[in-house]
């Protein structure tokens, strides 16, 4: 598929996601609904990976770039937030470790159980 057609397809899916969000009012953002639509199209083989290769390589390889403008919004954050940064940093670190442990334990425990069932 030509690259502009690939872009049009992705923008179309994006638009469809927004429309579904607006009309049904479900609390899932339109972008995410768009992602689920594309996933469905890929699983059903209606869209093939090769057909959107150029556009997905272009965007996914520099994904972080597109998030810089929203990150710069940090400039507008008030002093009340700025004074809490050390606490936020600490919480981010601790919660990440707790989340990792909880996830790992759950997977490990359940895999052991299913292994024991079928020796």
């Amino acid at each position, binding site marked *: 598929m030509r690259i502009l057609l690939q872009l049009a397809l*992705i*923008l179309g899916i*994006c638009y469809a*996601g927004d429309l579904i969000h607006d009309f049904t009012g479900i*609390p*899932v*953002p*339109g*972008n*995410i609904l*768009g*992602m689920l*639509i*594309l996933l469905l199209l*890929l*699983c059903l083989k209606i869209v093939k990976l090769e057909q*959107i290769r150029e*556009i997905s390589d272009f*965007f*996914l390889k520099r*994904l*972080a*770039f*597109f*998030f*810089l*403008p*929203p*990150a*710069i*919004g*940090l*400039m507008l*954050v008030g002093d*009340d*937030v700025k004074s*809490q940064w050390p*606490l*936020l*940093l600490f*919480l*981010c*670190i601790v*919660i*990440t*470790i*707790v*989340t*990792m*442990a*909880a*996830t*790992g*334990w*759950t*997977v*490990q*425990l359940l*895999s052991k159980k*299913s292994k024991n069932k079928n020796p």
Partner: protein
Amino acid sequence: MFGIILTIIAFEIGVSIRNKWRNPLFNPILIATILIIGFLTITGISYDTYKVGGDYISFFLGPVTVLLAVPLYRHIQALKNAWLPILAGIVVGSTVSIVCVIACAKIFGISKTLMLSLIPKSITIPMGSVVSEQIGGIPSITIVSIVITGITGAVTAPLVCRFFRIKNPVAQGVAIGTASHALGTTKAMEIGEVQGAMSSLSIGVAGVVTVFITPVLLRVFG
């Protein structure tokens, strides 16, 4: 134009610093954010002037998020072998992350907006920033907290796995991807192939799970 050029230059500097040292602490987003904010502050150029160009870049956030279906699709076959433990682990992990944020916010008296901004901190930036916007958080704080979370995951993953005796390779991968998205996944790939694939799968699944459970958990605990 100005905002676009500044963003590209700062991003390229960030990427080349990362490529030179290959250390998760040198994160391109973190470096570029500091460079851009520093440049605007020193020159006295307002955020609104920057935003004129920045908005052209932000326009592509929609298509970027939709395209996350591609890596998710590539790794979804990995679910077939052990879908129950993997999905259960991701649901438990995502729930623990969100409930911890809500609990800590109450304990430490953090404002509601700030708490909402931190809730999607464990998932990938495209999904996290839309979740943040949706529930009333500040996306810029969410993005920075996501980057800090990712760096934490990448740096601490081997230690956490050893300390909490997570030895199963599948469990290690799912734990790293669920807790610290793509940044942690870079570490998971270094640890091993299974860990890398499981971590990659978990990025997308944890994102979707978080999107769906966040409104529910907020209603119950919020």
